[in-house]
């Protein structure tokens, strides 16, 4: 929909995004369960961040599916429901939801509980997106910066607490950062779009592996 995607990859990207959305939703629901058991505020925040990330991928997957089904045949051409308008709505919804998820994750790893810091982060992010001349470029730049910072914090968490689980999360977010960086390049080169998806897929597999280890309590 928004990138140069190789024709052979049509459909796979939708499946990938659907998988990312479902995995994120599972992590979100589990984080809320942990909050109900422990009353750890950060667990609830993590739940909210993964809900936003999940919704972002589900929305992207939905719109990609919609546009892959030749929408010109069933959508009106010149009103609010035209392909162009729906495309913009889909793009903005995905970007805003995903960036809100990343802002919440940043707020969690910052470990400074201040609503002012959170609103400042969110405000600057939304302001940059809304007033940007090149929304995609700004979005990928912001995502890469957020993911670089989150990865760095999770690598530090791993160094302070050397366990398999902390290692998996640090690796997962580092891969998400690489994935985001590849999407940054994908605006002009189709292959990077595929590579970005594979980086994200590996990252979500690691998140899922961590989830399995948590459930097993296996160290």
């Amino acid at each position, binding site marked *: 929909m928004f990138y140069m995607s190789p024709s052979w990859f049509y459909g796979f990207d939708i499946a990938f995004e659907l998988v990312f959305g479902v995995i994120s939703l599972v992590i979100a629901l*589990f*984080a809320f369960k*942990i909050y109900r*058991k*422990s*009353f*750890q505020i*950060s*667990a609830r925040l*993590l739940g909210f961040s993964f809900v936003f990330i999940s919704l972002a991928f589900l929305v992207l997957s939905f719109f990609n599916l919609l546009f892959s089904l030749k929408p010109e045949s069933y959508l009106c051409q010149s009103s609010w429901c035209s392909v162009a308008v729906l495309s913009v709505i889909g793009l903005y919804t995905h970007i805003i939801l995903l960036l809100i998820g990343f802002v919440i994750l940043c707020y*969690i*790893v910052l470990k400074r509980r201040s609503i002012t810091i959170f609103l400042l982060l969110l405000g600057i992010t939304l302001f940059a997106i809304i007033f940007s001349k090149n929304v995609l470029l700004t979005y990928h730049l912001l995502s890469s910066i957020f993911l670089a910072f989150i990865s760095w*914090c*999770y690598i530090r*968490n791993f160094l302070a*607490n050397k*366990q398999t*689980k*902390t290692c*998996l*999360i640090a690796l997962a977010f580092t891969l998400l950062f690489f994935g985001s960086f590849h999407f940054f390049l994908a605006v002009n080169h189709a292959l990077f779009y595929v590579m970005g998806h594979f980086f994200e897929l590996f990252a979500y597999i690691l998140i899922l592996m*961590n989830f399995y*280890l*948590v*459930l097993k*309590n296996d*160290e």
Partner: protein
Amino acid sequence: MMNKRDRIEIINDMLNIIESKGDKIKPTQIMYKANLSHEMLNVYMKELLTKGFITERIDKQKRRTYSLTEKGFNFLRDYKMIKSFVDSYGLN
């Protein structure tokens, strides 16, 4: 040197101490066994009571004792899983 305990470990220690003593534990015993200052004890006891992990009883001699609730037992049962998840994402 021992590592500094995080919040979730302190709560687990306190709940384990209360569970081990049944219904007859006094706040001072919790304070010594959990190795907490008086100020920290008050903060954590208030939190445990508010969140429904423990209940307070006052006997005829006006002495306060504490016991675990269903939520408290559930926390102890799932502690490893909670700790594991919290550590993974650096939530403590």
